[in-house]
C-alpha cells in the first residue's frame, strides 16, 4: 500500500478498524476528537458498532461490556477523560478481558489545556486505578508508529487478556505525516470468539466475568496470577529504539514527541562532535530497565527529556541505580521543547561530563 498524508487521530482510528476492531465507544475531547469522528463515519459503513457515550465513565464500561463478548473493542480519549476511565480500567484489569485504549495527552492538571503534554505517564504506566495491576503502555513518536502500535495493540491485548494503552500526545494526534496503513482485517466471526467470552450458556456451563474475590486468600491467588502474567509481559514486550549509542558518552532518554525532538538535538550535537546518543523507550510498561542499565555501563551522564515535570525520570533513575548522574530537562503545561533547547542541555552536560 502507498503512503498517504494522515492526521494522527485519523490514522490510529483507521489502524484500529483495519485490526478488526468491531466496536468503538467514546466521548468527544480535544485533542483526540477526530478519532471519534472518524469512527462515527467509518464503523457504521462497515456494519460495525460506533456509539457516543454520555461520559468517559460510560464509554469505558461499554468497552468493558463488549470486551466480555469477546470482540475487538476500543476507546480513545485525552487526559481528563482518561482520568474518568480509571475505575473502569481497574475493573477490566481485574476481569482480564482484552481492551485497547488510546490516550492523546494534553496539558494538566485539572482542565489544563488542549496542548501536547506527557503528564499522564504516572497515571497510565503506574496503574491509575485502584488495586494491583499494570497497563501495557506503548508510546509512538510518529504517525507511522501510532498506526503500527495501535494495529498490533489488539493482538497484544488478546495474547495477555490485558489492557493495552497507546500513549501519545496532542502533537501526534493533531499533526499530519505521510504514513502507510496496514491491510484490512475482517471482524472476528461469532463462532471464533474466545472460550472465556459470554456467548450464551448453550450446551455448556455458564460463564461469569467478574473481578470480585471476596475471600482474601482467593484474591491473593488471583493477584499472584496477574504478577506472573506481568513477568511474562516484562520478558516479551519490551520495545525501544536507539540511535548513535555505540560510542556515546552521554545518553538522552526520551519517549514519544520528546524522543523525536531529542533525536534532532542528538544529531545536531553529533555534528558538533559531541558523543551523544538517544534511547527512546517505546514500551513504557514494560519499561526497558535492562537496556538503559546496559547503556549506563558506557556513558558518563544521562539526560532525561520529557514534556512533564519528570515522571519517566523515576524509572530511568531506577534503571541507572545511582551509577551515573541523571539530569532532567522538562517542559510542562502544554509547552513543547525546541530541538535547540535540548541541544543546549546536551552541550552543558558534555561540559560537565568532561570537566
Amino acid at each position, binding site marked *: 500500500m502507498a503512503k498517504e498524508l494522515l492526521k494522527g487521530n485519523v490514522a490510529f482510528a483507521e489502524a484500529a478498524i483495519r485490526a478488526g476492531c*468491531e*466496536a468503538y*465507544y467514546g466521548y468527544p475531547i480535544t485533542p483526540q476528537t477526530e478519532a471519534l469522528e472518524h469512527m462515527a463515519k467509518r464503523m457504521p459503513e462497515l456494519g460495525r*458498532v460506533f*456509539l457516543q*457515550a*454520555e*461520559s468517559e*465513565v*460510560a*464509554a469505558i*464500561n*461499554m*468497552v*468493558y*461490556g*463488549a*470486551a*466480555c*463478548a469477546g*470482540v475487538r*473493542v476500543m476507546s480513545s480519549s485525552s487526559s481528563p477523560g482518561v482520568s474518568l476511565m480509571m*475505575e*473502569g480500567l481497574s*475493573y477490566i484489569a481485574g*476481569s482480564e478481558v482484552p481492551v485497547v485504549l488510546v490516550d492523546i495527552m494534553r496539558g494538566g492538571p485539572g482542565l489544563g489545556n488542549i496542548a501536547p503534554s506527557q503528564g499522564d505517564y504516572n497515571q497510565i504506566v503506574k496503574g491509575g486505578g485502584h488495586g494491583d495491576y499494570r497497563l501495557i503502555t506503548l508510546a509512538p513518536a510518529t504517525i507511522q508508529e501510532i498506526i503500527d502500535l495501535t494495529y498490533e495493540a489488539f493482538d497484544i491485548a488478546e495474547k495477555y487478556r490485558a489492557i493495552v494503552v497507546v500513549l501519545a500526545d496532542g502533537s501526534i494526534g493533531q499533526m499530519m505525516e505521510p504514513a502507510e496503513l496496514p491491510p484490512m482485517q475482517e471482524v472476528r466471526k461469532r463462532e471464533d470468539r474466545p472460550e472465556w467470552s*459470554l*456467548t*450464551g*450458556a*448453550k*450446551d455448556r456451563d*455458564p*460463564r*461469569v*466475568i*467478574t*473481578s*470480585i474475590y471476596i475471600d482474601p486468600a482467593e484474591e491473593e491467588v488471583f493477584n499472584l496470577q496477574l504478577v506472573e502474567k506481568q513477568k511474562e509481559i516484562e520478558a516479551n514486550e519490551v520495545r525501544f529504539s536507539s540511535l548513535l549509542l555505540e560510542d556515546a558518552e552521554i545518553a538522552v532518554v526520551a519517549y514519544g514527541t520528546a524522543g523525536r525532538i531529542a533525536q534532532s538535538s542528538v544529531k545536531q550535537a553529533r555534528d558538533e562532535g559531541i558523543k551523544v546518543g538517544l534511547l527512546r523507550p517505546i514500551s513504557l510498561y514494560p519499561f526497558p530497565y535492562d537496556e538503559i542499565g546496559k547503556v549506563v555501563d558506557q556513558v558518563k551522564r544521562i539526560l532525561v527529556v520529557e514534556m512533564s515535570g519528570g515522571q519517566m525520570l523515576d524509572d530511568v533513575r531506577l534503571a541507572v541505580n545511582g551509577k551515573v548522574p541523571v539530569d532532567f530537562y522538562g517542559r510542562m503545561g502544554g509547552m513543547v521543547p525546541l530541538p535547540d533547547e535540548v541541544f543546549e542541555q546536551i552541550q552543558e552536560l558534555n561540559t560537565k561530563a568532561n570537566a
Partner: protein
Amino acid sequence: MTDKKMAEALIFSKPESLTAVPTHYCPGCSHGVAHRLIAETIDEMGMRENTVGVAPVGCSVFAYNYFNMDFAEAAHGRAPAMATGFKRVNPDMNVFTYQGDGDLASIGAAEILHAAGRGEKITVIFINNAIYGMTGGQMAPTTLPGQKTTSSPLGRDIEAHGFPLKMCEILSQLDGSAYIVRRSLHDAANIRKAKKAVRQAFEVQRQGLGFSMVELLSNCPTNWKISAQESLVWIEENMIPYFPLGDFKVHPAIVESKKG
C-alpha cells in the same frame, strides 16, 4: 402410583435458569423472589441459552452465582453502560441488568438515564428497598422522608438530604423508554403481577421496542430492623403511597397487542 408422584413433583420445581446454590440473602429478603420471577420468565420464553445478565454492586453482587446463565459483574452503577456495550455487539441476545436503588438511582443515575434515553434494547430489573443493604443500612436515593437509616439516624430530613428519586416517573418521560412499570413483592397477588411485568419487559426487548424497566418494591427486614412479616406490611403502608404502583410507560405496540 409412581407416575402420579412424578406428575406431582413437576408442578413446582426449580427453574432451569436458577442454580442449586443456596443464596446469601437474609431470611425474609425478597431478592430470592425477584430472582425466581426472572428465572421462571426466561425459562418460559426459552431464552436461557441466549441471555446474558449484568450484576450490580450491592446485596445482589453475587446474583451470578444463582442464575444458571452467562453473567458479567459491573462496577457500581455502571451495569446499564456495560449492558449497552454488550448488547450493541450482540443485538440478537437477551440482555438484562439487575440493580438496587443505590446502584441505579444514585451512583448510576447518569448511566440509567442515558441507557433509557437511547432506547437501549435491554431490560432492567430495579430492586427498590429504600436502603443500602450491603453496606449495612445507609440512606438510599429512595429512602423515604423521615425514614431512619444509619446515615440518617434521626430520619431522612428533606431539608438536608432532599427528596427520594422516583425513577419510573423520571425514566417514563424519555422517548427511548418503551416499558416502565412499578410493581411490589409484598404479597402473592402483587408477586404474580410483578411476574407478568417481568415477562412483558423481556417481550419488549425481544421485539426491539426500546428500553424496558420493571421496578420492584422490595423489603429489607435486616436493615429496616423489623421482622420479615412487618417489612411486607411496611412496603404496603409506607412505600406504595410514595412510590405508587402502575404502568408509567407502555409502548403503543404493546397496548395495541393487548387490545387485539
